[in-house]
């Protein structure tokens, strides 16, 4: 059953079509990677789904609530982490989370325990009484995650949660998201493929305001990834000659050569596995490397969106 369901959603800013008939479905309990190049419409979608913007047309249901006519029904069900979470600089994390707890109607006891629990989760107990104004981007991002979780939301919307962080900060935030699996439905927008590969179960690829494809990550890789092998040898002349011979075989789609490495794209993996090594030996090659290339999300993304937007 879908926790987030978007149908034929458009959002026009004058002549600019930020969303152009977007369809989106997120099943309950999944970590959904909303992937697309910059300007694809990811943030606009999340802003509409959190009630901050209105679509030009279309419909959206989040946790059973019609977003366009939600009134006050939507906010208790969702948590939202904007790309750059903004806080009152004069507040401390403790005051901030307590304030949010009050807004969500938590009792004093609940606020105290939840605040402590979340500060521990995002590892900010030691700075809990420091002014937020002096925090780094990574600290603000972590506090933003805590803020989004204060009321145990059913659906969590995270807009580029790790894109501006250093490697350590990125790992921390991704670990946090991974730990949320099963606790909430997470919709995470990003243009960083590695982040999606690491934490998301389901991937939706958006470009120019349209959903190009959405599927479980493994299915997507199976469907779109190109079966390929790479062979590396020192004797480049022999390697190139063998490459030319391979091109004539019926189970080979294409062969490219670069810096002593032959990339062989095949139609039939089984036949290729049986024939390639024997063929190389027969061609008198001494191999440095022979590898079946594991398909990556990058291959899928490149096929669907194009090379110019890859991150």
């Amino acid at each position, binding site marked *: 059953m879908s926790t987030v369901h978007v149908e034929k959603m458009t959002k026009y800013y004058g002549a600019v079509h930020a969303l152009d008939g977007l369809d989106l479905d997120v099943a309950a309990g999944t970590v959904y990677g909303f992937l697309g190049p910059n300007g694809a419409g990811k943030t606009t979608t999340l802003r509409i789904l959190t009630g901050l913007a209105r679509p030009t047309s279309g419909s959206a249901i989040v946790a059973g609530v019609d977003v366009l006519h939600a009134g006050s029904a939507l906010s208790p069900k969702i948590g939202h982490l904007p790309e750059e979470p903004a*806080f009152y600089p*004069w507040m401390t994390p403790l005051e901030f989370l307590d304030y949010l707890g009050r807004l969500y109607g938590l009792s004093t006891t609940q606020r105290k325990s939840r605040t402590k629990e979340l500060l521990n989760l995002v590892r900010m107990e030691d700075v809990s009484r420091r002014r937020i104004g002096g925090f780094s981007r990574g600290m603000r991002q972590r506090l933003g995650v805590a803020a989004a979780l204060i009321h145990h939301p059913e659906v969590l919307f995270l807009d580029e949660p790790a894109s501006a962080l250093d490697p350590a900060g990125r790992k921390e935030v991704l670990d946090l998201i991974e730990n949320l699996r099963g606790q909430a439905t997470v919709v995470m927008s990003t243009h960083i493929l590695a982040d999606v590969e690491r934490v998301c179960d389901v991937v939706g690829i958006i470009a120019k305001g349209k959903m190009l494809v959405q599927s479980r990550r493994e299915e997507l890789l199976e469907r779109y990834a190109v079966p390929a092998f790479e062979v590396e040898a020192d004797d480049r002349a022999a390697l190139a000659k063998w490459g030319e011979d391979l091109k004539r075989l019926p189970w080979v789609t294409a062969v490219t050569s670069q810096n002593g490495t032959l990339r062989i794209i095949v139609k039939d993996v089984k036949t290729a596995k049986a024939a390639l090594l024997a063929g190389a030996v027969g061609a008198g090659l001494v191999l440095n490397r022979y590898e079946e290339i594991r398909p990556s999300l990058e291959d899928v993304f490149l096929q669907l969106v194009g090379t110019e937007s890859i991150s």
Partner: protein
Amino acid sequence: MNFITVFRKEMLEQGRTYRFLIVAAILVIFGLSSPALAKFTPEMLKAIPGVPANVQSLFPTPTVVDAVGQYVKNMVQFGVLLALLMTMGVVVQEKERGTAAFFLTRPVSRETFILAKYAAMAVAFMASLAIAALGCWYYTYVLFEPIAWGPYLTLNGLMLIDFLVYMALSLLCSTIARSNGIAVGLAFVALIIVGGIGALPSISDYFPGHLISWGTSLVLGGDITAWPALWISLGVIVVALAAACLIFRRQEV
């Protein structure tokens, strides 16, 4: 929705960002100094070396009328300016910084967001004006004579309504604007319209500035009334706040 919680946060913000302190300090300084200025200005002028005796005799002996006049003049000038300056950025800055977007996905209605800010500013001004008025009353009593409490409280109440009009208009400007610069420009246009055009004799009876004439007249025993200006001022506050809520509700933040 959650008005009290957001209002409490706004009051805390008034304190932590020194907004309340700034308003209170300026109004209290002018409140306290007004009777003293009225009392000692003529004496200081007389003390200037070389002022001929016949000119010195032209300086009138100050009375409670001068103390009240000085107080009203200072308070209105600085009070209105503070009301504009302190309110013009409160919404637009939150939109620019992103805090508005961050909090509007929480259980905070847009009306609560606007009205809690206005209420907090109103309380800060009311408290500051109360301290300033008390100080002025005390020094007027020490230097001149006591002022009757009833008319004096009414004068300050009318002055507060005048400030509240400017605050509501400034808040509306802050809501409409997409940047702080535009908010400043719009707020000063509001000042020119309400303060400048409202000073024209033919229409001044209907503008908030006339409330001050009414209040001063009550304290000094005159016979000016300004009921139309009072109703119009209260109407402007309600309409400006309603418009701010409505506009903010339709805005994408």
